């Protein structure tokens, strides 16, 4: 092991132990590691933003671009300057223009992404499971596909009912948490499906975190072994 590798290995080991010390409570070692990490990440992200966003999208066209590119780049440049200036209390109001642009853009991308990126593909997947051609594609198991399609539909309808905001109309002052009749029934089924979905995702998160724990323990043991001359 070269000295260079030894140093970095030692740094990794030290940081691992410092962060894992959080398990016995917040302490000086954890804070040191955490704040070092925050500083490095902030510095690295700044470099990436400058190198990969501001330089190619804003500064390069302004310096090396054709005149038409220079004209076009004046708009984001103006918005960028307004955003920076608005950080000074006196010019606070100027930030509203670039922020309005950002909000409008994000809102439209949100609408498009929500409908065409999530809603429609999910609806399609539920409906396509009812295609009779698909059911009989794999011989011997059409019942399974039919059951799966029906269970999927009931599960989705139940989950959507669970989210129903409105409550049963009774007395104005009734602090009811109950949905209107039809939705309440379906929501009970939906609650089970929701629980199962979250449980499955939880298992995935737990596995990922556990793998990270095992990885850290392996790194520590390997480093110590190598330091002691073992393989």
């Amino acid at each position, binding site marked *: 092991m070269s000295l260079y590798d030894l140093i970095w290995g030692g740094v990794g080991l030290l940081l691992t132990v410092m*962060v894992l010390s959080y398990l016995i409570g917040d302490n000086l070692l954890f804070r040191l590691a955490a704040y070092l990490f925050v500083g490095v990440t*902030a510095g690295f992200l700044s470099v990436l933003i400058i190198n990969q966003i501001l330089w190619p999208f804003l500064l390069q066209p302004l310096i090396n671009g054709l005149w038409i590119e220079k004209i076009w780049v004046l708009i984001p440049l103006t918005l960028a300057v307004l*955003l920076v200036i608005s950080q000074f209390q006196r010019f606070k109001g100027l930030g509203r223009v670039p922020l309005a642009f950002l*909000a*409008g853009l994000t809102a439209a991308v949100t609408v498009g992404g929500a409908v065409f990126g999530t809603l429609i593909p999910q609806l399609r997947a539920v409906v396509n499971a009812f295609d009779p051609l698909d059911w009989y594609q794999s011989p011997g198991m059409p019942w399974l596909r039919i059951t799966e399609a029906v269970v999927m539909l009931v599960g989705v309808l139940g*989950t959507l009912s669970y989210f129903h905001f409105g409550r049963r109309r009774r007395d104005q002052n009734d602090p009811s948490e109950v949905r209107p009749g039809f939705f309440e029934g379906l929501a009970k089924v939906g*609650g089970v499906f*929701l629980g199962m979905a*979250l449980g499955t995702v939880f298992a995935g998160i737990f*596995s990922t975190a556990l793998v990270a724990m095992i990885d850290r323990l392996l790194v520590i043991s390997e480093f110590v072994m190598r330091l002691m001359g073992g393989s």
Partner: protein
Amino acid sequence: MKKILPIIIACATGLTILAGYFFQDRLAPILGLLINWGIVLVGLAGLIGIAYLVRMHIFRIAHRQKGGFYSVIVLLAFLFTLIAGLILTPQNAFYRDWVLNIQTPVEASLLAVLSVTLLYASLYLVRTRGWTPMSVGFLVGALVSLILNLAVFQFQPGSRGEVWALVLRRLPLAGLRGILIGMALGGLIVGLRVLLAVDRPYEGE
């Protein structure tokens, strides 16, 4: 005018982007241009956000507030990483080692800490949530998923066991799809509220 201009900009930008989705062939170049401008602004906002972080730590040191010592660490690490990155570029081997050998162990160790937190919390599932259909579903979903992922049971291809394993694996999909559809619906409304100027976060409303 001071109030109306941001609203016009937000609505015009949003509607142009939406029109770009609709008339993709004709408006694709404008769509790309607007998105590039957005990327520039988000990047710049990221830098300003980091400036807030730096300012907070400078403030803490200057006013000798609690945790001032840690703020020195943040600022030193930040300045070194920033200056080294600008001089050496992110492709430089030493620079990569500097960033990765700090980020990787800390990130992995934070996940390791999370695993213990989750394990501990899972012991108290019923105390936190009680016996509800959802908590029972959660328990069943988590256990089944963990058992199936551990591959304790090996099934013959085409056997009943394999069919049941498949069914159990796909059962949670219904809930996941329901959640995603619901989230998309909420996202649609939130986006439209900004486009219709009902929500105006750029004006503090």
